[in-house]
């Protein structure tokens, strides 16, 4: 079917296009959304590389748990194996626990082995995120 491009149909097309672009022209910065998403996966990927290393996780209730990093997920929930509490006399609550799952929202610090951190790489990656990806 032949479509004849008359001047009338062309102007209709241009009106439709401007309507769509108005909807999309809301004041949102796609780079902001992308930036946040990328920095979340930055640490997710970073922890995935640290699986198998011995870390100490300090929680927001002051409990510190030492163990081997077994896995991490997108919420930065941490699964540790071979766990023991750092100050066992003060916190005997977890004496009989050897593997645990720690919810990401309660982690205050993750203390890493000093040789497990490539500081320059991490610096560069986070600097790039801060700049906007």
């Amino acid at each position, binding site marked *: 079917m032949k479509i004849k491009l008359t001047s009338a149909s062309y102007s209709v097309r241009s009106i439709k296009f401007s309507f769509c672009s108005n909807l999309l022209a809301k004041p949102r910065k796609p780079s902001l959304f992308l930036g946040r998403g990328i920095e979340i*996966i930055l640490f997710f990927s970073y922890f995935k590389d640290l699986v198998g290393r011995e870390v100490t996780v300090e929680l927001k209730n002051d409990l510190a748990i030492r163990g081997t990093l077994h*896995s991490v997920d997108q919420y930065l929930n941490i699964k540790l194996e071979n766990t023991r509490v750092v100050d066992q006399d003060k916190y005997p609550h977890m004496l009989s*626990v*050897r593997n645990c799952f720690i919810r990401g929202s309660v982690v205050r610090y993750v203390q890493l082995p000093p040789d497990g951190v490539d500081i320059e790489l991490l610096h560069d990656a986070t600097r790039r995120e801060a700049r906007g990806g």
Partner: protein
Amino acid sequence: MDLIFSCVLVISIFFKRATGPGLESLVDQTILIITNDGRNIVGVIKGFDQATNIILDESHERVYSTKEGVQQLVLGLYIIRGDNISVVGELDEELYSALDLSNLRAHPLMPVIH
């Protein structure tokens, strides 16, 4: 091009599989849950979901104090909401039975402060 690539990366990792917590291996096992207000609850996981809400059967709470030994309060079948859970620990039966609870003195755990 870079933008498109990072877009795909974010979507593929972040959105594609919103897998819940890897608690499948702990179902039907005795576990210890530390809640945000510092309570210790022991029970058998019957189910969980992506928000870490947990169904706990045969649950009892262990109350630690510095004055008397450990108290056990029987609770029964519980659903514990995920945003209130801080640690889910797999309880080792042998180590658990080796504990002498009546002589254990400890400060109760601190609540979580965000």
